[in-house]
């Protein structure tokens, strides 16, 4: 707190237009702090109630800003704000792949937050938020892609939870056919995020990684995406569209996929943990009939994987209320708030101790069961590609989208992508 205030004063002085009140030495006194919350699922309400509780306790005010739904749109918004050195939003909710992109605009929390507060989080996530020795964000919740399935339908047709993507394809097809024959004409086998946006990068990375096809760009910076295993994975995914997945899946983001699954029109769904709490809500048509498992592997010997996601809270360097903003970020990422988030919104904690908390495990059993999935999730190549990550991801999702929509073969699409990424990386140097 104190350290944060020491940081805040020179920062505040640097702004000629700063109101006098900020300079009065009363840490975090009656400041108005604005926070950008997520808008997917019930996260917005969760964030607002958490922030308002903090405001009440500290006597400050909060202004909750809602952001676009798609993460790449949020990033564009932040980049515009921060490039203009705007302090309009004090606390920013940032994706796990953004610290490298935004670091220079964010407050170093290593000096502003006590070490024991930082050390209660998973070390790898703290590591992911550390850029050049500066801690630029506090972990809020972590994510990994999961397979949601209809327990009742698998039981009805005597199927077990698919262990490979091939098994999933087969099971989805046969259950879809049987259900349609039984008069359920709207039933589809599998829904996922197929729109050309960051979500498709996450989905496709899971397919490719589960087949052993690498992570687009390897940690040394070499472009590895043009390989037969990656092509095999994408080819299988392309075969889903219009057979076990609706044609509209090519324009589905998280919420569209959840809409189809939760209304009972899909057997399987790939989504993030947040979908669990909503599928178990009182008004959910599939309440009590949903199971969660790790995503299938790519064939015999393939690995079960999920893309590492998750959100962090960062403090804007151009904020006029750095001290209060840091305090709010610490409050929201603390054990009490993370526990509430896990119970009410099934957002995965970043604090290991909460994975053994009986109340958390009761509300979202998979959080304990899939501990390994969360701790071994595959990371997108954001560290090595640094400030080109956005462009790499965009080229990747466009290439995959072309293959899914049948405008190019997976092989041709990946070959073209390989060429583009090599040029972009100046042959692996980034």
């Amino acid at each position, binding site marked *: 707190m104190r350290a944060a205030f020491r940081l805040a004063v020179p920062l505040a002085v640097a702004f000629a237009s700063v109101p006098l009140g900020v300079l009065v030495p009363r840490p975090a006194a009656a400041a108005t702090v604005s926070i950008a919350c997520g808008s997917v699922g019930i996260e917005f309400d969760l964030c607002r109630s958490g922030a308002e509780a903090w405001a009440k306790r500290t006597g400050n005010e909060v202004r909750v800003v809602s952001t676009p739904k*798609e993460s*790449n*749109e949020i*990033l*564009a918004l932040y*980049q*515009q704000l921060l*490039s203009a050195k705007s302090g309009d939003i004090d606390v920013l909710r940032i994706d796990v792949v953004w610290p490298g*992109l935004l670091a*220079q605009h964010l407050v170093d929390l290593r000096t502003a937050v006590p070490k024991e507060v930082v050390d209660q989080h998973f070390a790898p996530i703290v590591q992911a938020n550390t850029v050049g020795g500066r801690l630029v964000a506090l972990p809020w919740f972590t994510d990994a892609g999961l397979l949601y399935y209809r327990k009742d339908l698998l039981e009805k047709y005597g199927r077990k939870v698919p262990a490979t993507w091939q098994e999933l394809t087969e099971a989805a097809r046969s259950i879809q056919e049987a259900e349609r024959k039984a008069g359920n004409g709207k039933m589809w086998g599998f829904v996922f995020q197929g*729109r*050309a*946006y960051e979500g498709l990068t996450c989905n496709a990375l899971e397919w490719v990684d589960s087949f052993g096809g690498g992570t687009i760009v390897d940690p040394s910076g070499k472009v590895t995406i043009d390989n037969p295993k990656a092509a095999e994975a994408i080819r299988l995914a392309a075969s889903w569209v219009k057979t076990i997945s609706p*044609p*509209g899946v*090519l*324009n589905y983001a998280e919420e*569209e996929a959840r*809409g189809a699954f939760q209304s009972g029109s899909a057997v399987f769904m790939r989504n993030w943990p947040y979908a669990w709490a909503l599928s178990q809500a009182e008004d959910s048509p599939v309440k009590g009939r949903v199971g969660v498992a790790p995503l299938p592997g790519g064939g015999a010997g393939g690995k079960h994987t999920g893309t590492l996601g998750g959100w962090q809270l960062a403090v804007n360097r151009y904020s006029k209320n750095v001290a209060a903003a840091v305090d709010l970020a610490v409050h929201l990422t603390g054990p009490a708030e993370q526990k509430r988030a896990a119970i009410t919104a099934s957002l995965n904690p970043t604090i290991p101790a909460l994975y053994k908390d009986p109340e958390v495990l009761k509300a979202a059993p998979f959080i304990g069961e899939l501990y390994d999935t969360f701790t071994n999730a595959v990371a997108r190549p954001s560290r090595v590609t640094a*400030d*080109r990550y*956005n*462009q790499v991801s*965009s080229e990747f999702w*466009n290439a995959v989208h072309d293959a899914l*929509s049948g*405008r190019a073969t997976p092989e041709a699409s990946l070959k073209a992508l390989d060429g583009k990424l090599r040029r972009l990386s100046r042959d692996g140097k980034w």
Partner: protein
Amino acid sequence: MAAASPLLRQRRRAAVLFVLPMLLVLAAVAGWPLLRTIYFAFTDARLSTLETHRLVGLENFVALAADPDWWRAVRSTLLFTAISVALETVLGLVIALTLNAHLPGRGLLRAAVLVPWAIPTVVSAQMWNWMFNDLYGVLNAMFLALGLIDVPRAWTADPDLALFAVIAVDVWKTTPFMALLTLAALQLLPAELHEAARIDGASPLRVFWRITLPLIRPALMVAVVFRTLDALRVFDLPYVLTGNSRYTASMAVFARQRLVDFQDVGYGSAASTFLFLVIAVFTAITFTAGRVRLQGAGA
């Protein structure tokens, strides 16, 4: 001109003084950003580190020329401009001719026609987005009921349909503008000409082709030029309807994605500069062609 009287010279000086403030403001708000963009097009500047950049010559333009996504954006923009402006001109003309006839309730009709033009583009684009939706969109429901399609279409997601969806919304929105400009021209036409033609026994179609159209052509051309310039730099419609999708991205959407999403100020500026050149060339051609035609008419 050479032997200007002292009075004329004085008046010219006064005119310059009056125009000067406006020129200064224009230079600050339009000239300076434009020059800066053109300058950045020759650098490797990135949005996060604008201050530190170096000159790279024509590198960005060479890369642009070899970028299939860029040429796709150019093609989409030209296609969008040609089709939407053509449809808007024809439909606008038809509506204007109808409104020009002495119908009961004409004033009300005129106001009603203007509604799409009055709605901000972002709002109407989002409205259409919902109507286009493949799951709950009203358009699919209507077309299915009429038997025009047999399965719901993903209008804005399907790359083959998306550009036409964008064009359809633009036509819906901008036709009233064309209708209004055309109507203004129609109402200035002297009634005697039409009366004389009718007495001579000319058919209505002949009257339209031989009298009405030639007389309103100058006004119509101005409207077409304005619309074309507008359409060439279209951004909001494709962006709201289809995001950064490379099958519908216009040149402006392409430039914004490079500038902001990819932080590539150098490359994005090269794209912006090219867009500026296209519009400048188009304007020059129209003005020259217009002058030639006017002189031809005068001779």
